[in-house]
């Protein structure tokens, strides 16, 4: 047991240090790939061993405390170096609060199990270790190309992979932590890693966005320390298990939970804290993929989910549901106004995280299961899409979706994978849609939440459908096949395959794994959504039919024979099949072009952001006020 934990949490840190000091490409490739393989194996082994509680020796406890302060001083140092008042203030506040807590309030005699693994933690470890490793491996050829493109004299890859791999260890530590001070330590490590990774390219805009990420997440850190101290004075324990076991919180303790959730909101980039995650897209693609899919933001929703038993049935719970649903709706609206592929993905991430948080706020067994499933499926689909956009960007030199028109012709394989990735976010029988279905069922009694979910769900369709549609555009046969390095194509194919496989295993996953793990008692009482009265999976016939229908459609499309026809241009077509040009004045050919509707006057970023931030801020005030 302790060996597995060591592998999951400490090995990435060691591998990162190896990448940093051994500046050879081959060693780096080997280290990152091997670490990915070990993490995957270790996470599966940990799952096989089931739930556990792990006591760490006093040595580890002291080490974490020392490292914690060291890290805070490093952040403070960066605050001075970047001359940012907010970072300085927030870092200093954390040092003072934490010092006061450690020296005055905390009873160092009581022993607290440092780590624990229940179903939620184990699921998270799987997501972090497997999806995260694939992203790191994808990063190897990507960063080589990236640096060729930037024409760097001295490679910065050692530093890049140090933080990238370290990130995975910190995430594993965060989700496995039982001692809430350990949770806080790993929370700070992820903050710092994301800061270093976002600012990696060291351009002016990268530094600016990294600074913003650092001060916002430090604000989250302050909220977390406050929550921890407050909760400790109320419960007298640092053990998360013990706090959860005490049942729903009341009175002042609820405010402490509110602060912890607020820290989760910041980490998950919920409105109005979305700007740091949007800024993160200036970083190289593997970083965006890692931040958006399997780490960082998932840490935020994990924290809200982790503490959901404590705010069950309270006004705080309703407040969280409202905040989450509002984020879901507002970010889906903002995504419509974008043509930058990475920005669409970023807004859609925030939107989906909002849905997860709304589920945590609804706090019924069904909603919690929906949230956990969303974490899994979103991690797979979103990392896939980010990696696709990265691959496309390196080929065509743009991340604008308008420039991806007819991509199928140039990059048939990547385009197909991207289309599948998009559909997996949108259509049955893929998991994300099933989660949305469960969320809607769970929210049905909650008027404002269901209205926001209904509107948000329709907005989602618009930005995904138009993107998938314009990737398809092609005519005739594509130009040969597409060559990809193994470490680029491998992760893409694996993620794509798991998105497809998961679509078919969702009902099994639901009934056999998630219901027993999260809600056995309640579901047995109320019946389960994906099962019919006889105990069979309702979903399977449907999935079979959809699968057969799609296969039939593909078959018909491949076999279709017919005369090639020109697209209709009002009878004024000139030029060959490919060009699509009108006959203009003076017998000249006027090429036609089309663009998406971005509905700017309704969903433009500049029009909405201010109002949305004000509304979201008020909702958070409402949430926190309700806790009081």
């Amino acid at each position, binding site marked *: 047991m302790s060996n597995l934990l060591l592998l999951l949490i400490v090995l990435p840190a060691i591998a990162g240090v190896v990448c940093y000091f051994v500046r050879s490409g081959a060693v780096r490739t080997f280290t990152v790939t091997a670490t990915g393989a070990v993490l995957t194996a270790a996470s599966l082994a940990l799952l096989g061993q089931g739930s556990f509680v792990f006591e760490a020796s006093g040595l580890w406890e002291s080490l974490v405390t020392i490292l914690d302060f060291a890290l805070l001083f490093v952040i403070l140092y960066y605050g001075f170096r970047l001359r940012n008042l907010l970072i300085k203030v927030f870092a200093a506040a954390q040092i003072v609060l934490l010092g006061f807590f450690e020296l005055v309030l905390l009873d160092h005699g009581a022993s607290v199990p440092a780590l624990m693994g229940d179903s939620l933690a184990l699921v998270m470890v799987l997501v972090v270790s497997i999806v995260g490793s694939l992203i790191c491996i994808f990063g190897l050829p990507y960063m080589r190309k990236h640096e060729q493109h930037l024409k760097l004299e001295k490679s910065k890859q050692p530093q890049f992979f140090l933080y990238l791999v370290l990130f995975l260890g910190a995430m594993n530590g965060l989700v496995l932590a039982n001692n809430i001070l350990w949770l806080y330590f790993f929370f700070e490590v992820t903050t710092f890693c994301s800061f270093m990774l976002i600012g990696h390219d060291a351009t002016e805009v990268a530094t600016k966005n990294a600074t913003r990420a650092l001060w916002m997440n430090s604000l989250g850190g302050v909220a977390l320390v406050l929550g921890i101290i407050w909760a400790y004075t109320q419960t007298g324990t640092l053990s998360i298990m013990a706090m959860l076991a005490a049942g729903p919180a009341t009175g002042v303790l609820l405010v402490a939970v509110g602060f912890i959730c607020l820290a989760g909101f910041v980490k998950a980039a919920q409105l109005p804290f979305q700007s740091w995650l949007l800024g993160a897209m200036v970083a190289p693609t593997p970083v965006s993929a890692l931040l958006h899919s399997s780490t960082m933001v998932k840490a935020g929703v994990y924290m809200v989910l982790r503490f959901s038993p404590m705010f069950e049935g309270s006004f705080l719970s309703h407040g969280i549901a409202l905040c989450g649903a509002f984020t879901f709706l507002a970010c889906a609206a903002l995504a419509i106004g974008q043509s930058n592929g990475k920005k669409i993905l970023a807004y859609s991430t925030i939107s989906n995280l909002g849905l997860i948080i709304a589920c945590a706020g609804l706090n019924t067994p069904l909603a919690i299961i929906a949230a956990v499933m969303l974490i899994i499926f979103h991690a797979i689909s979103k990392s896939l899409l980010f990696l696709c956009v990265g691959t496309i960007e390196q080929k065509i030199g743009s991340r604008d979706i308008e420039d991806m028109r*007819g991509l*199928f012709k140039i990059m048939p394989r990547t385009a197909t994978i991207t289309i599948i990735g998009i559909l997996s976010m949108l*259509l*049955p029988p893929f998991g994300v*849609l099933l989660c949305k*279905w469960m969320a*809607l*069922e769970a929210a*049905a009694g909650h*008027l404002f939440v*269901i*209205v926001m979910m*209904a*509107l948000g*769900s*329709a*907005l989602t*369709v*618009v930005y*995904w*459908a*138009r993107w*998938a*549609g*314009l990737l*398809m*555009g*092609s*005519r005739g046969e594509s130009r040969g096949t597409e060559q990809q390095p193994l470490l680029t194509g491998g992760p893409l194919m694996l993620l794509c395959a798991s998105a497809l496989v998961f679509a078919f295993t969702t009902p099994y996953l639901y009934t056999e794994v998630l219901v027993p793990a999260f809600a056995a008692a309640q579901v047995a009482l109320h019946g389960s959504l994906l099962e019919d009265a006889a105990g069979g999976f309702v979903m399977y016939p*449907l999935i079979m*039919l*959809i699968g057969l*229908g*799609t296969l*039939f*459609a*593909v078959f*018909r*499309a*491949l076999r*279709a*024979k*017919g*005369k*090639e*026809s*020109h*697209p*209709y*241009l*009002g009878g*004024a077509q000139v030029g060959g099949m490919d060009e*699509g040009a009108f006959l203009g004045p003076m017998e000249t050919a006027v090429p*036609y072009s*089309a663009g*998406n*509707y971005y*509905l700017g*006057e*309704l969903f433009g970023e500049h029009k909405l952001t201010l109002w949305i931030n004000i509304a979201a801020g008020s909702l958070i005030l409402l949430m926190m006020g309700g806790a009081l």
Partner: protein
Amino acid sequence: MQSRQGPPILQAFYDVAKLMGKDQMLSNRWQILCCWVYLVAAALAVGMFFARADLLLIFFVQAAGAVFLVMGALSVKSPYSQVGAQRELVQILTYEPLLILVFVGMYLVVGSFDVGDILAYQTPLLRKLPLMFIVLSYALTIKLRKSPFDFSTSHHGHQELVKGVMTEYSGPALGLIEMAHWYETVLILGVCSLFWATSWIWMAVLLVATYFAELVIDNTMARMTWRWMLKYVWSIGLALTFINFIWLHAG
């Protein structure tokens, strides 16, 4: 409405039969894929409706078809088809939330999203959800592509025959789309029928009256713009929804 005699009532079926016998013209293989998925999804949704499945799930399957229709239109390099696809997306954006809210209304009354449970409910839903029926009729008008909301299938360039989202479909492929559209009509009228499921006669009366009202609206209204549609339908639809839900809550 006019004294001329129009085509027979079965003309739509004759048209499709004729389309199916025509030669296939291909702009693009994606289109064939998309029109088949559209048809399969629409048929599946109707099948699920009659198998008394979960309304939300039926709706999602139907929505998958609608999305594929749009993607098919987007995959072709033709301005009419592209414009039609964008407008169709706005139409989807307009009716989707309303349909979900209609289903939620039924859930609030019956306590279940299952068609079977809704059919088993003893009083006509129309009595408890009169405003939601109006909301549904907006969705119906959009889904049937009737004026004032029919802009995704019409856009004229130089000729009147241009048909927006369907511009690039011809022959058998167009026939498939027409058939899928029949399924969608059946599905949405099926949802209407749930509003008076306690008596066969009243159900029939309701459906005939609704369909006739759609024809009257179609023939008396002019086409509007998508901006108008989105703002008008969302605001009226949401207002009606809130009022009706508050009634339910109070009652």
